[in-house]
């Protein structure tokens, strides 16, 4: 999509692009290249020298059962969060799309969680599910259910899935609602006249027409679950107990910042980078769009 460029100046546009370009270079491309370079090096135990190590870091990662576990864990987490969050959002959007009184109010009340920081979502959920102070957490423990996600790995995973999916519903809701509203009313009326009621109409007409939105959101949700959930997980479980909730991004943090294993964490970062590029490229292929914001 081009426009007939109008102004013939040469220096001015360069000056205008310069800030963005510089920032991108310094804080984006350079670190990304450094990450790639670091992933190909090994450091000695004192961090003084680094040696070119080819793909050693990568090989080590993929033969490390802990890392492979982490991949599986993250994949499960991403799928669970995306599925849960998107289904709930779609469900609510369908009903918020109907012409009922007060639907604007409903919408605002369902959209507001967009403002919550991932780390803050953790704080909110603590009040719900923390075993000693959370309303439901306490209730569970007092009624015979041994609920403590600090001790039980499965419960910890459940906890972060719930908290992370919950937070993302509002974003998905916004997009699903817009998508539903872009389905032409007359097509839905034609389906009604053809005899399609409620669920059948949704399944055969609305949902297929929603496919672009759904696909777009799927990619966004997967990226969200992979990265943006860091704050929530760190605040709730710090990746524990043990490694039960250590997703790939948490592992990068642990290995890189806490344990200062630059080579390994860089390699992990590079792998994640490739993953994101792959997902975004896929999205482009099928939609020609990119995630906003």
């Amino acid at each position, binding site marked *: 999509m081009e426009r007939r460029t109008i102004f013939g100046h040469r220096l001015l546009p360069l000056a205008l692009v310069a800030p963005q370009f510089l920032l991108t270079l310094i804080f984006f491309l350079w670190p990304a290249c450094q990450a790639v370079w670091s992933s190909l090096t090994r450091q000695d135990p004192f961090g003084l020298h680094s040696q070119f190590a080819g793909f050693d870091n990568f090989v080590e990662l993929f033969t490390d059962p802990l890392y492979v576990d982490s991949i599986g864990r993250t994949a499960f987490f991403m799928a669970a969060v995306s599925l849960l969050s998107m289904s709930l959002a779609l469900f609510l959007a369908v009903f918020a799309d109907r012409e009922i009184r007060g639907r604007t109010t409903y919408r605002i009340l369902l959209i507001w969680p967009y403002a919550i920081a991932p780390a803050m979502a953790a704080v909110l959920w603590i009040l719900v599910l923390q075993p000693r102070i959370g309303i439901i957490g306490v209730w569970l423990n007092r009624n015979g259910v041994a609920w403590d996600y600090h001790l039980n790995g499965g419960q910890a995973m459940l906890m972060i899935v719930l908290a992370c999916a919950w937070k993302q519903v509002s974003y998905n809701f916004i997009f699903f609602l817009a998508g539903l509203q872009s389905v032409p009313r007359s*097509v839905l009326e034609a389906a*009604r006249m053809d*005899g*399609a009621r409620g669920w059948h109409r949704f399944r055969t007409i609305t949902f297929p027409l929603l496919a672009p939105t759904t696909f777009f959101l799927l990619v966004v949700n997967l990226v969200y679950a992979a990265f943006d959930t860091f704050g929530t997980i760190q605040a709730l479980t710090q990746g524990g107990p043990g490694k039960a909730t250590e997703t790939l991004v948490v592992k990068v943090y642990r290995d890189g910042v806490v344990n200062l294993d630059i080579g390994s964490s860089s390699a992990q970062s590079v792998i994640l980078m490739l993953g994101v590029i792959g997902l975004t490229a896929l999205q482009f292929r099928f939609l020609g769009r990119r995630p906003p914001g």
Partner: protein
Amino acid sequence: MAMLEVTGVRKNFGETEVLRQIDLSLASGEMLVIVGASGCGKSTLLRIVAGLENPSTGRIMLDGRDITSVDPAARDIAMVFQNYALYPHMTVFDNMAYGLRIRGLSRDDIAHRVREAAGLLGLFDFLGRKPRQLSGGQRQRVAMGRAIVREPKLFLFDEPLSNLDATLRVRTRAEIRRLQRRLGVTSLYVTHDQVEAMTLGDRLLVLHQGRPAQLATPMEVFEHPADTYVAGFIGAPAMNFLPARLTQNGGSARLDAGPLLHFIDGRRSGNEGTALTIGIRPEHVQLVPNGVPLRIDLIEPLGSETLVHGRLAAPGETSLVIRLAGKAPEGEILTIGFPPEHIHVFDAETGLRFH
């Protein structure tokens, strides 16, 4: 028993009364055209019959069954939408098969019906295509095909030709008429185009601001319009309206422009001097040697005929359009006459036909 009976239907949107007291009944196989200007309520009426809107009061009976509160999916009615409303993600075949699949017809039945309709509409080669690969005219035919395969009790057409270009419109109009006759399905057709109305309808319902102005056959509506609205709406160029007064004991009308017009179909009851509106169609105004002088303002040559816009002499300088066969006449003034068998008499206040 009538196939479709609409009784006492009214529709209000908040404070606005969109439809007032509509009653009509259609015989089986009949095509009724609802015609009127934008905003007259015709689409609303159609949607009420379809079940996409609820009437504020009134009842709809289809083939003896009260469908007023029945869901559109269960009414056994098929509708052709103005912008076709085809399912964009389905092929032409699937678009037409959709309603049949819901009804649980066998695959063979469905295939048979769809192919039959496709044959009728010339869509055979397009069955595998998606709507975005079709032209406007083709999409329109798919929309009709989708309605035809359902073999419903009633067809509804919501201005199906308005998105087509002029030549296609004329051709498709004839096709619709032929199809409807051949299939014999009772039909309600909504349009704002009076030519479509005249050519397609067995009967017309002219709607004016939600009110039924006249319900009659096309010729009846043309030759004996019930009021000035109908008279001015049907026929192009529109009927001329001349102010006049009742005189001679109800036997004549004195035009404000001067001449006296004698009624040949009997006296009218009313007081001397009652204000009237006399209507006469442009094609009925005649050129007569000692007639009323008409000053020519504009001549529009159409080839086979000519439209002359002019003004009668004072008072009021009433403007007039006359349609003459052949070429434009010479001169600046024409003398015209109003043959008594072609004049329409309306009450100037109510607009209704004056008896």
